[in-house]
């Protein structure tokens, strides 16, 4: 055996044969499985006698005899166990098989030696399972200290099916499991962390799948406490738990600006759409340099190759294809002789066939012309550039010369947002300042002025061959630059925060429709009227008005500004305006200065000294649409006008506004300098007020048996969501004696429905008394969502504006507080105070109840939290 091997190597050295195709470099052998054995592989490891154990998504564990033997295709496959709930990770410790199920890490024991498992012991299970179908648990590498590592998929849901959610603990986290079963949440912000691996230095790498907040498929280097970008996992941080806040679907969390840990590598979309796990080649016998990484890829059905380097304390690196046409590779495992076993599966996920099975991939030991690797070079004083060094496995053919034609280099970055993935943004071709092939023709150095941190660079070489004529097998390589080797480290990320795209699922979600229904009710103003308006035919500098509800116009002689009663923080303002000939108005959001509205395309939309970047104003007498996305100053960050859009054209983007205080403030339309007409004024808050901790989560799923129903409605609990259906009736929460309290819930009412959240609820004459805060999209009593009434005969304060569209989730907050003048009830919608009522008599402490008002009502409530 040894002799033969030596002979083989000697021959190779004498006469270098080149593989010119992938199949010439790596062979594929597919295991034939017996009837009824479908290997949808989620985990693999070796027993000490060399047998290979695989766990499958069907919850089975199979053992493959002699996997390195000559006749792999016919290797014996035996069922060791079945009946688990998936097995997306497997680890053999001292010949004991450990499998990661959805709900637990289990040890499988064959206690009577008959070859089948008969004892299943729970090692760890301290994480949540809501029952959502997408709550996968991935694993299961084990480090040199004996700790296991695993990751939990977020579940999906609102507003789109693919939007991540984290309704139970540690969804979207990477966890450490100690040998005694203790589970420690380690890092957050992952979405679908399918691939988890440790390298020889115990560094932990995790792959994720593109989706909301995840621009493409990344490889993270996991550090303790790291946050990798998907916001929903933050629900389980101390900070969020204490504040009662929940991470928002569409608004980036505060921590995203500078508190993310950047992925070490972004794999280009064209190479990976669903990444599996990875391994470090520790043998040097797989046809790639020892120490490089092999990455599993499902959708494109291949293996990728990657390498990492540390730059200014952060890992980053390169990636490129290695071996294609394998099948949907979900797991890779390397044998001591260098062989890589690929476990396939793609059921429900999509990917290249075969959809399942076990593949043995081996190097043919033929030479190949490949990149050796890629290194980011430091600043060069002479050319004043950064650059890259690319190495080759063999000298490049003497005929090849490096030029702008043969070396193509592009850079790009991504958007960090809630949309599904991100296109490559700001793509540009990098001009080469210097390009030099070394004397031995094995190293290529490229330099450019345009190499920046927080970008990705792809280099494609054309026409490169070895001296033998063998082509460069994979001529394109991608590098993720988190940091440059010198200079001040950057705070920027490859995936950059951008204004959220318009919501597609529920266009009105989070919006307060200030001028709907009672059009004047949400504004402080004098001299404004609801009427129809058009240019006066006789005098185009004026409006002719008539009865109607088409416009809000400052027709009065001493008209004031038109100012919202509510104060807003970061927000998206939408308004439509119309000016007469020569007309002039302005809009001011909080303390950010004025956006001028003028009947002049060159100046309309000016912000301070900054003219609009495009002429988007149309004409006097025509309605114009204005959208302003803005952020207030906070901590060290200045205020920003993120984007101002006039009639669909962006006229300002990313304008930093210095010298502002950061206080929330109203939206003010100038009404004192001539006629202006307004309509459809909406504000979508893009933040939530900060607050202190002390929130309790009213977990209906845990206490459902203690909730009490009264009257003629029904309430069901569906996926952590309370769903009430009319007629008149109440649902009592199992809680009591609430005095001063703030209650929060996410609620939604249908177009035919009305209901209420009742705080300090108590038995009353006609049902349930208390402070009832209305959630009403239908009942024509002038008390719409946000209205409050004390008992059946106490004081009431109505909101007549249709602030919230029907069938739209709204974050409702009710604060009840006793004071000298009685009890004050304050109602906020989407973080904005919209109503306040003082009850001079006050009411005794009580509980919490939900009410359906009438037939046809569908009242949905999520996440009831309270703070006493």
């Amino acid at each position, binding site marked *: 055996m040894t002799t033969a091997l030596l002979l083989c190597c000697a021959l190779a050295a004498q006469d270098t044969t080149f593989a010119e195709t992938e199949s010439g470099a790596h062979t594929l052998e597919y295991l034939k499985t017996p009837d009824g054995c479908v290997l949808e592989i989620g985990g693999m490891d070796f027993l000490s006698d060399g047998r290979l154990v695989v766990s499958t998504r069907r919850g089975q564990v199979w053992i493959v005899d002699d996997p390195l033997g000559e006749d792999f295709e016919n290797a014996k496959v035996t069922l060791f166990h079945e009946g688990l709930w998936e097995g997306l990770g497997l680890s053999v410790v001292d010949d004991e098989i450990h499998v990661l199920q959805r709900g637990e890490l289990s040890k499988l024991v064959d206690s009577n030696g008959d070859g089948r498992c008969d004892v299943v012991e729970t090692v760890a299970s301290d994480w949540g399972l809501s029952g959502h*179908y997408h709550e996968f648990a991935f694993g299961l590498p084990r480090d040199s200290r004996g700790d296991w590592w695993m990751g939990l998929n977020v579940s999906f849901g609102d507003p789109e099916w693919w939007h991540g959610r984290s309704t139970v603990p540690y969804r979207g986290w990477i966890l450490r499991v100690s040998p005694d079963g203790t589970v420690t949440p380690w890092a957050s912000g992952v979405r679908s962390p399918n691939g988890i691996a440790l390298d020889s230095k115990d560094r932990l790498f995790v792959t994720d799948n593109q989706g909301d907040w995840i621009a493409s498929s990344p490889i993270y280097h996991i550090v303790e406490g790291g946050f990798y970008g998907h916001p929903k996992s933050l629900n389980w941080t101390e900070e969020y738990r204490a504040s009662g806040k929940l991470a928002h679907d569409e608004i980036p969390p505060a921590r995203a600006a500078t508190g993310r840990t950047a992925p070490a590598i972004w794999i280009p979309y064209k190479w990976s759409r669903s990444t599996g796990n990875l391994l470090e080649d520790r043998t040097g016998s797989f046809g790639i340099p020892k120490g490089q990484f092999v990455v599993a890829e499902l959708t494109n059905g291949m293996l990728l190759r990657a390498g990492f380097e540390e730059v200014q304390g952060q890992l980053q690196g390169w990636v490129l294809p290695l071996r294609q046409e394998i099948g949907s590779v979900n797991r890779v495992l390397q044998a001591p002789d260098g062989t890589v076993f690929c476990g396939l599966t793609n059921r429900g996920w999509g990917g290249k066939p075969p959809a399942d099975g076990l593949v043995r991939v081996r190097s043919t030991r033929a030479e190949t012309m490949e990149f050796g690797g890629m290194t980011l070079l430091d600043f060069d004083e002479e050319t004043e550039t950064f650059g890259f060094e690319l190495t080759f496995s063999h000298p490049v053919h003497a005929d090849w010369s490096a030029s702008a034609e043969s070396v193509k280099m592009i850079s790009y970055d991504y958007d960090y947002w809630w949309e599904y993935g991100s296109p490559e943004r700001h793509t540009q071709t990098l001009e080469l300042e210097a390009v030099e092939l070394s004397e031995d023709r094995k190293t290529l150095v490229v330099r450019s002025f345009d190499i920046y941190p927080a970008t990705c660079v792809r280099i494609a070489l054309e026409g490169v061959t070895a001296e033998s004529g063998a082509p460069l097998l994979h001529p394109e390589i991608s590098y993720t630059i988190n940091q440059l080797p010198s200079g001040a480290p950057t705070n920027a990320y490859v995936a950059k925060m951008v204004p959220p795209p318009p919501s597609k699922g529920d266009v009105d979600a989070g919006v307060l429709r200030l001028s709907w229904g009672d059009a004047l009710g949400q504004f402080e103003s004098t001299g404004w009227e609801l009427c129809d308006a058009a240019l006066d035919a006789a005098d185009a500098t004026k409006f002719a008005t008539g009865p109607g509800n088409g416009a809000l116009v400052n027709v009065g002689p001493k008209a004031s500004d038109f100012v919202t009663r509510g104060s807003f923080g970061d927000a998206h303002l939408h308004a439509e305006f119309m000016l007469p000939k020569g007309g002039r108005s302005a809009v001011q959001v909080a303390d950010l200065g004025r956006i001028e509205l003028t009947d002049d395309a060159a100046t309309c939309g000016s912000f301070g000294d900054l003219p609009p970047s495009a002429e988007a104003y149309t004409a006097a007498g025509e309605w114009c649409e204005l959208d302003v996305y803005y952020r207030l100053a906070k901590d060290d960050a200045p205020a920003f006008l993120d984007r101002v859009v006039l009639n669909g054209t962006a006229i300002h983007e990313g304008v930093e506004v210095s010298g502002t205080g950061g206080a929330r403030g109203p939206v003010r339309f100038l009404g004192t300098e001539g006629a202006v007409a307004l309509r459809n004024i909406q504000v979508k808050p893009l933040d939530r007020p900060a607050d202190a901790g002390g929130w309790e989560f009213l977990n209906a799923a845990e206490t459902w048996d203690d909730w009490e129903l009264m009257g003629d409605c029904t309430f069901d609990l569906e996926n952590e969501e309370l769903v009430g259906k009319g007629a008149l009736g109440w649902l009592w929460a199992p809680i009591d004696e609430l005095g001063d309290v703030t209650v929060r819930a996410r609620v939604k009412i249908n177009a035919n429905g009305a209901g209420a959240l009742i705080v300090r609820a108590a038995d009353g004459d006609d049902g349930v008394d208390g402070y009832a805060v209305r959630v009403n999209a239908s009942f024509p009593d002038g008390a719409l969502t946000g209205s409050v009434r004390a008992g059946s005969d106490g004081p009431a304060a109505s909101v007549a504006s249709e602030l919230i569209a029907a069938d739209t989730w709204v974050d409702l907050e009710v604060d009840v507080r006793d004071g000298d003048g009685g009890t004050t009830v304050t109602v906020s919608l989407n973080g904005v105070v919209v109503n306040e009522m003082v009850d001079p008599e006050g009411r005794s402490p009580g509980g919490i109840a939900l009410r359906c008002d009438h037939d046809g009502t569908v009242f949905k409530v999520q996440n009831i939290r309270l703070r006493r």
Partner: protein
Amino acid sequence: MLSDRRLAAAFAGALLVPLALPSSPSTPASASPSVVDEKAIYMEHCAQCHGETGDGKGTTDLERPARSFLDGGYSYGNTRKAVLRSVVHGIPGTPMPAFAETLNGEQLQAVADYVIALGPPGTIVRPGDSVMEVGEQPVVVQGMMPAYREGGFREPRSVVVGFPNGTTFQYRKQDARLIAVRQGDFLDRKDWGGRGGQALKPLGALTWSTNDAYERANDVVDAKTGEALTRRITGTRIEGDSVWLSFDLAGPDGPDGSVSSLGGGHEIIRFVMVDDVPVAVRAIVAVSGTRDVRMRPIGSDGFATLVGTVDTKGTTGFFDVRAVSDGVFAVEQPDLPGLRFFVHASAWSDRLSTALIRSLIEND
């Protein structure tokens, strides 16, 4: 509870087996003959981006190239339903539009099937036969069970034990409680389809489900304070014809939110034969070293009626038999308040008593 594994192993149980009702066969939806020209629809609506042959090289200039169908692999997964979903709803964040408004239901499915047919054969995963059967030995399964009653909850952490005689026990793992008993075929692993994660489908008929009275009789309490302790299933073991469920025991939350571990025990499920009918007996017993815990007393407050005794003629003494819930009897010795057997039978009878005695003596 009694700390004696040997004694606990002595008991097997009685379930007077009702006949499983045959479930009514489902009627497949009638398919009407297709008059849809799927290729024409594809050429009109899809080809400009995905190419006439489906190679992803259409004439429209896109930010991101359209998918080539020739290789297989679809955004939402390789199932007919998933491809249909892409066609109906579009793919957010990509130029792929939704066709729900443009095409009718039949056209949507036809074009989805056309797209699938463009790909390589075998791209669509057809879940294998996912019905699990119980053979010669009991089978223990983990997974999510659907709600056993209307208005109830799915149970994501279920342990389901199936016996060769067609009896299935459904436990909740996080509190080690028996939730339901069924009779008939075992389970359909519905989570073998799609992306997985679906609830298991029990194939047997429900013959018993838990209620308040049973829950009280099933409580393990602190012997001094009478407070209920929490139990979790920590392991399962198939031992011959019986199945052991191990559980741990923890005291109520301390002031710092901690729980104190108090040891643990086993719930052992066996069958005894009564007139050739298998009757399930479940013994609950502590592991050695577990102290100061006992089963909640059930005789004193009158909620469970004494219906008989089991006299083992001096071998192990007298056992009281109480009806704790429809179809379940609790059997215990007055001076051994830690050990309790639950016998699943529709009525108590002398024959049952005799069979139990035989089982006790044989196994003692």
